[in-house]
């Protein structure tokens, strides 16, 4: 070992000595190498995206060799069985995902938007200094903690006080449980994005509205919200994309049964739950039951990417109006 190091050091010395010349600019050479390293580091982002897309496309292609794509996209039944003859229809999973996302937005959008309006337009310095960090703490809590909250508190509470008295179901994991908890998780997301957007509306618009005799709430409803609308829509789309890709809350709160039903107190399942379900444990990566997870992943990636791009496009277009 020592000998190898010594030989390498000697070789290095010899190489360096042979390069020394009055016209040789060592700094430039070294810096070119460093620049190459910097460029390499910044391409990691591209390589990651390529890796994600390639790994999913290749496995999805294998899946569609084993299982017809038509039945995957339009099938209404999800009955995987590792002995073969499974039904792997996307629709029940997609329905569960969208239903839970809808309920989450039903919670997060009004609460988040109203808190943003209150913080931006009404709250004094003290109130803002207290309430804003409190709400933002919600954004720093890991999703597993929300999942546990859904499992041990919200689920049993909804079951005992709503589902059972109303005769709607006896399951503590339900669309409602997952939706409400996910809504709580999204509150700070909606509120801080909307807060930024509302604050970006120029003061002159508010002053004009007050000058015409409008009350504060009339100003908010008729001037600020219309002006901020594209940005708020963008924020809601980003929140929806978060909700669709969220995993732990639905794994622990929504259940595992793939059903096409309207009852919000029934257990349903989502795309992410099934990705986890099909890929954890000892799986045989040549069976369609395992490979379907990659097709689900690709579907999820496409949906969330589409929503993100749409949201960014809307937000960017809106920003051009005032700057």
């Amino acid at each position: 070992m020592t000998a190898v190091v010594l030989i390498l050091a000697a070789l290095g010395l010899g190489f360096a000595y042979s390069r020394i010349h009055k016209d040789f600019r060592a700094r430039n050479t070294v810096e070119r190498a460093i620049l190459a390293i910097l460029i390499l580091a910044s391409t990691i982002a591209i390589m990651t995206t390529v890796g994600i897309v390639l790994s999913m496309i290749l496995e999805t292609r294998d899946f569609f060799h084993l299982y017809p794509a038509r039945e995957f996209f339009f099938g209404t039944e999800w009955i995987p069985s590792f002995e073969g003859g499974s039904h792997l229809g996307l629709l029940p999973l997609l329905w569960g995902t969208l239903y839970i996302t809808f309920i989450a937005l039903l919670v997060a959008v009004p609460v988040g938007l109203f808190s943003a309006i209150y913080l931006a337009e009404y709250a004094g310095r003290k109130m803002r200094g207290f309430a804003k960090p409190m709400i933002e703490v919600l954004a720093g809590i890991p999703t597993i903690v929300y999942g546990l909250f859904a499992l041990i508190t919200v689920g049993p509470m909804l079951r005992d006080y709503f589902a059972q008295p109303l005769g709607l179901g006896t399951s503590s994991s339900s669309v409602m449980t997952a939706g409400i908890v996910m809504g709580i998780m999204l509150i700070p997301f909606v509120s801080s994005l909307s807060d930024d957007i509302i604050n970006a509306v120029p003061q002159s618009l508010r002053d004009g509205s007050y000058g015409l005799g409008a009350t504060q709430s009339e100003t908010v409803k008729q001037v600020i919200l219309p002006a901020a609308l594209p940005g708020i829509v963008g924020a809601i789309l980003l929140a929806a994309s978060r909700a669709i890709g969220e995993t732990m809350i639905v794994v622990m709160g929504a259940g595992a049964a793939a059903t096409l039903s309207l009852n919000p107190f029934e257990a349903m399942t989502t795309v992410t739950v099934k990705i986890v379900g099909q890929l954890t444990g000892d799986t045989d990566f040549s069976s369609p039951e395992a490979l379907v997870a990659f097709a689900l992943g690709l579907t999820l990636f496409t949906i969330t990417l589409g929503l993100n791009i749409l949201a960014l496009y809307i937000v960017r277009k809106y920003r051009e109006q005032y700057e």
Partner: protein
Amino acid sequence: MTDASTPVPPKSSLYATTDRVKSRNRREARFRAYGFTAIALGIAALILLVISILGNGYNAFRQTYITIPVELTEARLDPAGNRNPAEMARVTTFGYAPLLAQALQQHLQGQGISMEGVTPRDLMAMISQEAPAQVRALVLANPEMVGETVTLEMLAGGRIDGFFKGRVTLESAERDSNVTPAQLLLAERMTEAGMMELRFNWSFITGPDASDQRPEAAGLGIAILGSFYMMLVVLALALPIGVAASIYLEEFAPQNRFTDAIEVNISNLAAVPSIVFGILGLAIFINFAGLPQSAPIVGGLVLTLMTLPTIIIATRASLRAVPPSIRDAALGLGASKMQSVFHHVLPLAAPGILTGTIIGLAQALGETAPLLLIGMVAFVREFPGAPPEGFFDPTSALPVQVYNWTQRADPAFVERASGATIVLLVFLIFMNAMAVILRRRFERRW
């Protein structure tokens, strides 16, 4: 002068509010109340969440122990009589269990505590199944103890422990096949005699996980170590790569398609669902590169890719905050562009970079979904080795351990999962507080 017209009584007065104004003011007050309610709801949700986790979890930090003198009989534990640990290891935990039960029975009789309604078999069930294994490990480590009578501290069974924590009651014991009311009454008498005690439980934090039937012995040691290893990997990879990428993008990159593509990619990666990174890790690091499942190295690599956008965004912001005059001064004194960045800009941006890195690490620490896909849910009893070999040993991780415990049947694991969540939250609060303090301490306005 005559009054040209008799004064018309005004329809409305500035002093008296009209119905219309009243209704507008009411609407204003209502709107304000909606806003206030929304904030109250958000904060109430936070408080409910914290209370629910703390209320369910604080009991995980306390555990019931039985303390009794046990005679470690030579005939049973060291039949050969030569105190050779290799030979003594042939006596399995099944050899130790009757020893403990016997010792407990003798001690109870000696203290004059009645065992009314408790069969010897029930008595043995009051000691955790984990206790014989722990005593065996102790004896194998100290062979000279054989033949002596030592005072040992043993875990009580999960239901007995639950009784002292209010999870198991005399009524619920009637319906429970795993515990009888007589056992609980005996446990109460033992507590009065000072043989049984509920106290702080270090082994919850340092011990390994335990199987489904032994919630009382389950600990977080391996999970904390696994999370720590992963954070080391993330720190060692994400910080240099993130800083290098930010320096290139902020200081050197020309405006062209290539750099545009990088920027779009970084902002997209920040919004990709975390589970997709898990699929990437499974397909590339495990199936393609052949790295072992459940290993901290794979988890660390996946979390690195997830943390990179956070670190890059924070680093770029703090590089941008360094005024151009610093760069100009360095260039004016003959430094190259590279030297001006590495010798002057980067040190000045370091506090901001550090803060961003800590926040990125905190995010990575709480991430669960991608780790499920790379096999970290597996049941691990063996502590991983020291790094670097330890990076390739199977471990668990804190958030995955929480998930793992929620999937088990015994309700005692709910308490464990909440306790593990408390530990996770304490780590996160600590890291975020550190980031805030660093920012306060080193923040610099130019």
